[in-house]
């Protein structure tokens, strides 16, 4: 018997862009039991396919009653670091992948023309996206909303990836992501613009106790991280409140959370600024969802109070803010920063692989708020089980047993799952 049956559709989507074919095949039961899911299962699937395949996978708890069950993992051999990397995607991407009828998506080959994938109700369509090429991310999203089938979540690349810029980053909607290892470049190489997830279906999770998530919430409610939560508490752990917190002081903020997360670690900022390139218009009001802690700290160190317009420009082009920060002049002005970004877009400077080995393994964007091996283990656990890694880093008192309890109450099953989980975490950390 497969104890993970209620947690998966047990379907895997295989897209061959070269042949313009998309099939949905059954997910191997043995593979699920052995690797549980997420990054570990992605690694196993990756070995089965040739020619730079891309794997988007979910964990057993993705979309379930577990707190912060928002994770989808993209696995690839990074074109920058030349090694296997797993990038976490949060917001609603993971649950929407499952609610679209597949647990995992394999993308191989390269499309003859710019394409975009639409996944819904267990079916995958390859749609033409020639009209989106070189369009900035917000405009491309507007186009898609007008002309494509309905979708709940969207991952796409911007004009930076279209031009082959090494700092390109995949964006979840218009909000950017934690991709700092070249996923966008690989997607663009495949002539793929992005993936739309319909999310129009559902999954009958094992719902013996839907209040289990609330009970876990109670367990962490006394924690300091729970009381002083939010985007800025994570930033404070990263830079001691020296840079990003100060730079974002004047903007209006609102905490935002990913799917089913009790501890929001994102924030929406509203700010007013004046575009120096447009002398006729007045100050403009703008809004931005901040989810990339590492990118914000890196930009704040260079751009100071101009962080938000610069970040907005990075997201507009689909650029990684941390990579861009390396190329910005120290203590410059806003026009100088814009000029530097334009130069990155036109000159395509080589990527400086400044991300530490351990961090680049998990996309380079998961904040290092715990030390060494503990960070590895926590992120590894999150990337397999399908829970947000930042949430697990913030609350180390949530154990793997707490999370596995969402899958089954049977001691025998739990023992098997525990063994399987610890071995997969070890193997993931070693790769």
């Amino acid at each position, binding site marked *: 018997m497969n104890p993970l049956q209620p947690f998966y559709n047990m379907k895997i989507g295989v897209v061959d862009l070269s042949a313009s074919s998309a099939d949905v095949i059954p997910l191997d039961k043995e593979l699920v039991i052995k690797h549980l899911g997420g990054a570990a299962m992605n690694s196993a699937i990756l070995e089965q396919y040739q020619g730079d395949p891309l794997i988007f996978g979910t964990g057993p708890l993705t979309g379930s009653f577990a707190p912060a069950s928002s994770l989808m993992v993209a696995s690839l051999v990074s074109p920058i670091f030349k090694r296997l990397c797993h990038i976490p995607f949060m917001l609603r991407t993971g649950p929407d992948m499952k609610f679209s009828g597949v647990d995992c998506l394999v993308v191989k080959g390269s499309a003859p023309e710019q394409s975009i994938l639409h996944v819904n109700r267990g079916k995958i369509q390859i749609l033409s996206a020639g009209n989106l090429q070189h369009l900035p991310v917000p405009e491309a999203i507007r186009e898609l909303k007008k002309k494509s089938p309905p979708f709940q979540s969207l991952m796409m690349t911007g004009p930076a990836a279209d031009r082959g810029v090494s700092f390109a980053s995949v964006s979840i909607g218009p909000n950017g992501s934690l991709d700092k290892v070249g996923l966008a470049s690989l997607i663009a190489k495949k002539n793929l613009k992005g993936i739309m997830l319909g999310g*129009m279906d559902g999954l009958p999770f094992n719902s013996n106790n839907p209040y289990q998530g609330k009970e876990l919430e109670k367990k962490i409610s006394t924690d300091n991280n729970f009381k002083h939560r939010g985007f800025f508490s994570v930033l404070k752990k990263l830079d001691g409140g020296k840079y990003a917190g100060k730079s974002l002081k004047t903007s209006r903020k609102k905490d935002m959370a990913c799917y089913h997360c009790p501890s929001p670690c994102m924030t929406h*900022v509203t700010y007013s600024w004046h575009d120096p390139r447009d002398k006729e218009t007045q100050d403009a009001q703008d809004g931005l969802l901040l989810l990339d802690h590492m990118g914000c700290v890196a930009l704040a160190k260079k751009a100071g109070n101009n962080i938000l317009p610069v970040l907005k420009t990075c997201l507009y082009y689909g650029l990684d803010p941390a990579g861009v920060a390396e190329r910005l002049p120290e203590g410059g002005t806003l026009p100088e920063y814009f000029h530097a970004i334009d130069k990155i877009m036109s000159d395509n400077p080589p990527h400086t692989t400044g991300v530490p080995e351990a961090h680049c393994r998990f996309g380079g964007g998961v904040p290092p708020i715990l030390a060494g091996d503990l960070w590895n283990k926590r992120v590894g656990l999150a990337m397999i089980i399908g829970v947000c890694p930042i949430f697990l880093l913030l609350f180390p008192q949530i154990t793997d047993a707490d999370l596995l309890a969402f899958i089954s109450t049977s001691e025998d099953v739990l023992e098997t799952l525990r063994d399987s989980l610890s071995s997969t975490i070890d193997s993931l950390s070693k790769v």
Partner: protein
Amino acid sequence: MAEQDFSLNLDDLRPSPAEKRHLSDYFMPPRHSFILFHPDRCTGCGACEMICSTRNVEKVAPVSASVKVVRDEKEGKNFSILCQHCRKPLCLPACPTRAIERGADGIVRIDKLFCTQCGLCTMACPAAAPIKDSGSQEIHKCDLCEGDPLCVRHCPENALTFTRGKAFRWIKGLRWTVQLISFLLLVIVLTGTFCYFRAGSVSFSCPTGTLQNIASTGTIVLFGVSSAFALLILTILSGRLFCGWVCPFGFVLDLVDKMTPKKIGWPSFLKSRMTKYGVLAGAVGGSYALGFQVFCTICPIGTVCRAYGVQSFFRSAELAIVPALASLEIAQRRSWCRYFCPVGAVLGLTALLRLIKIAIGAKKCKKFSCIQCAEVCPVGIIDADKLREGLSPKIPMTECIMCMRCVDRCPYDAAKIRFRWQKAVPGEIRT
């Protein structure tokens, strides 16, 4: 023999429910339960959609939920689409098969047996609350989970509040009646008697006026002092009941408040409740220095009693004082009473000796954290943050005007009038 017509129409299958009218319906609002949404608290995690869908379709499928969270990515605001169980629902007459009913408990329900999924209700509802499932084509609409909404229990941010309507708020009705009678008595019938009134051995005087009189004349007349005791004794027995129930200017302020529901706010540097004690000291000091009762010339309570009576209508320039001070109500509810009224200051000091208090037992209301008591308090002395933390707020009785709106509004009987030596709720630790 004439052919008999056996055709059935909708009235035979599903007769229109007769409108039940009771005597109380003419003056009491019908029972009205609904879920309140607090956009400032919502982080957009979608826990409400998730749990609601499990009840609707027995699987986690946010698109099949009866509640929808709409996320405005530019403004960073979240909105919920949720049935408000209107008193006169528009979906009800729109339904061609009479599948929608409003029960005696005030809950508007769809009878699935009669629903033909035509979707007319979705178009008729101004809030677009009935939601058509894109998969099963069923219409989903909130039925408040028959009185214990799951979304309210699951929301990690308490952004949803279940409000059980009360049939009739008797305190509200009684207070408005007493206020109206007091106003008519003091302003029309007994014009000018609030400041000083004497009939034989019975006398009454305003305590603030008496203090100013002593300061201006330098003599203490025992009879005059004793006449001020009436109001002070009432305050010792029942707190500042005069301010909430009797004060004619308070009645004017309450009327202005009804006309100006939107408040522009009061500058924070002026928000000191100690100001009124300063005004009192200034009034007494000024009277001593100038030799006449300085504040009495502009006292809004005195002027409303003197200048607006039948005998003295349009008599003096005092007419302008009441509208001028009542216009402060545009900034904040009962601004005058909160920050400036020296009569309130004298009564506030006397209230230190009061025998009763208002107590709010957070244990009774923590589950819902509705904070309606804090929202209705006209002088803003109930600490909503304490309630959200599950702690009973301490009500400063020197500021409380004993209007009892909190007692009246609390749907859980958590707000009570107690003797000052009694605990808020037995067994509860008050902070």
